[in-house]
């Protein structure tokens, strides 16, 4: 058994996740944009910071308007902390080591999570008095406060720098954009690795379980009907028939996608009992139809991945009868 294949990839939505924040969170974030920390006085008198849409104890709605909103801080007290010796590039707001802390702003009864830029782990403790270091450019986002910094006795916090609103800026913050990128190294697994090696040799390698005649190409490792491992390797043909298909009229679905319009299809390969995805070329998209016999067009350079099969082309053979593929639709 050759070494199992793995592939590195990044799960990412270019431009980040856009989220509507709603009126309660929106008002808090608008406050940050203005250089102020806002809290809400709950029915029991406690001041909630940062405000949530519902009272965390009673679930009563928190009104986005009204006179229960007050400004808190800007000075706060560290309630709990930990030290981040190795900041995460592209994620953390600071590139140098910092503390994460739960900070209770003066006038609040709850604490908010944020960064404390204090130089070293021994420069912070529970009870340390801290104040926000505001960014000059603020958009209504948690990192409008770049970090909190310890205050010496009697030291006054630095007010937020005045910012000039953009002309098209909304009066209230209604949404945020959160960049998210996660890196993975996924394992193909034993069965898919066998299949991928086949691709590099111009073969389509399927597999079946000992107690079934059903052949899967490719197999993820089990017979999905029974859960039995597909331990028996079976080569299937690179010919088959179209079971179902669609004509794609949307450009740019992937880097490998051809010019639109093109047809993609499920293909029942000869010798397999499940369908195989492929593009159909070599004929007009108007000519693609269920039952059409097709054959794989292999790339000149074979590799252990799906680029080895460029597309499927019509063979000109008579159509497969409906009975042949009716259980694969």
């Amino acid at each position, binding site marked *: 058994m050759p070494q*199992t294949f*793995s592939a590195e*990839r990044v*799960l990412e939505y270019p431009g980040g*996740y856009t*989220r509507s*924040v709603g009126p309660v*969170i929106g008002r808090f*974030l608008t406050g940050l944009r203005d250089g102020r920390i806002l809290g809400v006085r709950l029915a029991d008198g406690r001041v*909630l*910071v*940062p405000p*949530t849409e519902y009272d*965390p104890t009673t679930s009563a709605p928190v009104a986005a308007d009204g006179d229960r909103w007050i400004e808190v801080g800007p000075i706060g007290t560290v*309630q*709990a*902390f*930990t*030290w*981040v010796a190795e900041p*995460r590039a592209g*994620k*953390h*707001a600071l590139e140098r080591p910092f503390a*994460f*802390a*739960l*900070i*209770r702003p003066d006038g609040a009864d*709850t*604490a*908010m*999570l944020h*960064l404390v830029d204090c130089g070293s*782990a021994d420069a912070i403790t529970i009870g340390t008095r801290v104040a926000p270091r505001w960014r000059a450019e603020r958009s209504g986002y*948690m*990192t409008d406060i770049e970090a909190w910094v310890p205050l010496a006795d009697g030291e006054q916090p630095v007010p937020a720098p005045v910012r000039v609103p953009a002309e098209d800026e909304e009066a209230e913050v209604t949404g*945020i954009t*959160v960049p*998210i990128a*996660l*890196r*993975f*190294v*996924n*394992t*193909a*697994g*034993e*069965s*898919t690795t066998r299949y991928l090696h086949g691709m590099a040799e111009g073969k389509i390698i399927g597999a079946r379980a000992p107690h079934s005649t059903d052949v899967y190409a490719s197999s*993820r*490792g*089990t017979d*999905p*009907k*029974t*859960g*039995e*491992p597909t331990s028996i390797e079976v080569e299937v043909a690179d010919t088959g028939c179209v079971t179902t298909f669609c004509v794609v009229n949307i450009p740019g679905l992937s880097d490998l996608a051809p010019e639109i319009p093109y047809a993609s299809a499920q293909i029942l390969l000869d010798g397999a009992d499940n369908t195989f995805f492929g593009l159909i070329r070599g004929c007009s998209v108007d000519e693609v139809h269920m039952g059409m016999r097709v054959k794989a067009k292999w790339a000149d350079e074979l590799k252990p991945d799906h680029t080895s099969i460029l597309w499927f082309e019509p063979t000109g053979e008579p159509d497969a009868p409906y009975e042949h593929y009716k259980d694969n639709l």
Partner: protein
Amino acid sequence: MRDVAVVSFACSAVAEDPVHNETEMIVPVVHEALTAGGIPKGELGFVCSGSLDYLQGGPFAFVAGLDAVGAWPPLRESHVEMDAAWALYEAWIAIQTGEVDSALVYGFGKSSPGDLHEIMALQTDPYYVLPLWPSMVDMAALQASAYLEASGRTDADLAEVAARSQRAARSNPIAVRSGDVSAADVLAAPVTHAPLRDADIPPITDGAAAIVLAAGDLARDVCERPAWIRGIEHRIEAHGLGLRDLTRSVSTRQAAEAAGALGGADVAELHAQFSHEELILAEALGLDGSVAVNPSGGPLAANPVMSAGLIRIGEVARRITAGEAGRGVAHATSGPCLQQNMVCVLEGGN
């Protein structure tokens, strides 16, 4: 209430499985649980799983997990995007309805393909917390900081927990971290996420677990000594870390009271991923020195995410079925800093 019992349990864990995909990893565990459970797959009333698509980074990744069970003829099936202890809870409810008499529950997850500690930031609220990217360990360390301050305990207490876990894990075949370790050994290592050391932080683990549940006479037929579920409850607290008291676990206490878990036990298996969590949970559950806590080593010894909670139930059940314990308490948690907690009481007898 119908009497429902755990009749079989299987699990696997390794630090990293670079060979098998998730489906291949689940197969032997499900097979072992089904074989030991004695109920043919075709006669199972319900199948429920727990996993987290973010671990693979694939939308609907959990669907492929069902290929390890086999879904033809069609099954009654469900999934929770949580630890599989909550899948067991759903299965227990399904059996309580009287619609079904048995269930297969399984959980799986590979922590090694991505950065687990970073991924777990995505379970926090996306407005106030996620933009700051606190890792799973950062959040736990904040709770440890608050707990030590409030309780007067020190990192020496954490080290006792960590060391005992590693010593206990020497007899656990799926432990990925174990050894003849003393608290002094633990304290000799550097603090990595103040106030936590690496030994206080669960090891990255790939693994799976499966349990078969059966009701009443069916359980008695297939298992000589079923582990009966005498109570199972879960409670949840506010998600905001600064909105709740991190120094104690109110929801664990509430779940334990509702489940009848405060009446003593021979063994307790706690889903304590970090040393301080075991101390907080033991206080909430009223466990004194007479109860063997995490004799398996617990999640500090092996932490296959999304099955580590189910494994706690399985570990207690296994000891009852083996006749080593008469009554036990299993705990599972979900969310950052013990946000949501389940308590399950299991007993032997008929």
